[in-house]
């Protein structure tokens, strides 16, 4: 039997769609399973065969809040993520502005050097940073986390903003200068509104990276400044089977940033690739 061209095409289309659905189901399944488990009792969580239908309970969530003070950790995550992002932006916006519109002979090299600081392995500077934080009495404080996270994201933010500012035609700026605008006014009234999209995507990316950072947050914090990554890590230690509670804590820790990521995927790509992929 000869299958017509149109039929071939339809079969191919349907196979592709099916493959996409199967792949999406596989990749999303661990997250689905985590959320599902968070509504089970501890006994149901380890039941075999695995339980798909059951009477959901909210018990785990209230236990997490009572035992480990989820709100405190969530607040630390929010404050450090937003604080570090804000700090990095405040430093980066004027710098990127001046590099984009008044590039010197070494501007390109400086930018590459900034990117190369990302290559410095965190573990190689663990002891110095740890000791300095100790000397300054800043161990387990949000301040030290905010500073470290800001420095980690500064190069990426610089690259992104530089790429965005570059796209603003310099004639507009020259015109404003002719009209007597000062540098601050120029940034405030011309550059910022025009590059708003770029600044937003840099900020979004930085927030996601800060939220999920799990080296410094685990090693430099304890009870006071611990973030959600540290809270979840603390559940790894006792070898008990508290999967339902672990799932509840994980769900609470990830939900905000996953939903956030869904809405800003486009902006994040530009950020992650330093604007190199459009």
């Amino acid at each position, binding site marked *: 039997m000869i299958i017509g061209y149109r039929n071939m095409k339809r079969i191919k289309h349907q196979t592709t769609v099916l493959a996409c659905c199967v792949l999406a189901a596989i990749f999303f399944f661990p997250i689905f399973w985590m959320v599902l488990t968070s509504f089970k009792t501890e006994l149901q969580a380890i039941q075999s065969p695995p339980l798909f239908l059951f009477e959901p309970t909210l018990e785990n969530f209230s236990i997490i809040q009572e035992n480990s003070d989820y709100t405190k950790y969530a607040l630390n995550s929010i404050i450090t993520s937003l604080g570090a992002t804000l700090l990095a932006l405040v430093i980066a916006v004027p710098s990127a502005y001046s590099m984009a519109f008044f590039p010197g002979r070494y501007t390109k090299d400086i930018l590459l050097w900034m990117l190369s600081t990302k290559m410095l392995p965190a573990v190689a500077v663990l002891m110095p940073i740890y000791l300095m934080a100790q000397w300054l009495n800043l161990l387990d404080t949000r301040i030290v986390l905010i500073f470290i996270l800001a420095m980690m994201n500064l190069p990426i933010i610089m690259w992104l903003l530089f790429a965005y500012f570059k796209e603003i035609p310099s004639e507009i700026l020259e015109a404003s200068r002719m009209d007597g605008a000062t540098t601050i006014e120029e940034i405030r009234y011309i550059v910022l509104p025009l590059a708003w999209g770029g600044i937003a995507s840099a900020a979004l990316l930085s927030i996601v990276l800060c939220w*999920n950072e799990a080296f410094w947050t685990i090693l430099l914090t304890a009870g006071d400044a611990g973030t959600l990554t540290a809270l979840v890590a603390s559940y790894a230690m006792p070898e008990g089977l508290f999967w339902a509670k672990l*799932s509840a804590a994980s769900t609470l820790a990830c939900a905000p940033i996953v939903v956030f990521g869904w809405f800003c995927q486009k902006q994040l790509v530009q950020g992650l690739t330093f604007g190199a992929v459009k």
Partner: protein
Amino acid sequence: MKINVYKVLQAPSIILLLLWMIVPLGMTIYFSFQRYHLLYPERSGFVGLSNYDFFLTDPALGVSVLNTLTLVGGVILITVILGLGISLLLQEAFRGRGIIRILLISPFFIMPTVNALIWKNMFMNPIYGLFAYVSGIFGLPVVNWIAELPLLSIIIMLSWQWTPFALLIFMTSLQSMDQEQVEAAEIEGAGFWSKFRYLTLPHLGRAIGVVVMIQAIFHLGVFAEIYVTTGGGPGHESTNTTWLIFKQALLGFDVGVASAGGVFAIIIANIIAFFLIKTVAKGMGK
């Protein structure tokens, strides 16, 4: 005079990053030549290269370097291949594609500690895990993933998280592909493979470069996944260089040796960075 204002604007970012890099780096190099043990602070002083000698003759070093390379290389290979395949499938327009895309990229936003704990407990646990259950159905032997295949387990976790990243970037890059060129090739009778080989792959060159570079940066320093699952073991089977140095520093309290290890890690990272940054800089050209 005007020029100075712009220099001043650039100064904070450059000075801060310079301090952020130079000060800890200088201290690490200084410590690496000192005897500095947190438990015996009274014993101190210059010790020449003995910290390096101690670190470099550690039998775990060779294993950990090999593990690091396997980890970085394995994850990059898996994510690039899967990411490419899925992004090509998603070129097909169909209803609900938006939702499929959202489901596919979600793992990227899961925090590393959560990622590792979900997989370790609910999938890889040899008694209650889903993998054990599924292999039980098919009558296959149950694998104790974390204990028997620790490095592979971590590669699976990282690949699950980072395939969406590769996918996200490849999808974005494919959108800017010249469709007329593709149609022209189709009219000329080009099949799937020749289109892929001569049009898609060259177009994705830069995107692949970016994916490889960024993943190399992140995976060279994999920490949280090991911290909450294998703890580098059993033995040194899942110890990477980051973990080895971390163990010297915070578990062994030996700042001197850990610093020598840090200098070693910096040298390795720089060798890799040198090649990668050059490639990406070329790609970004203009």
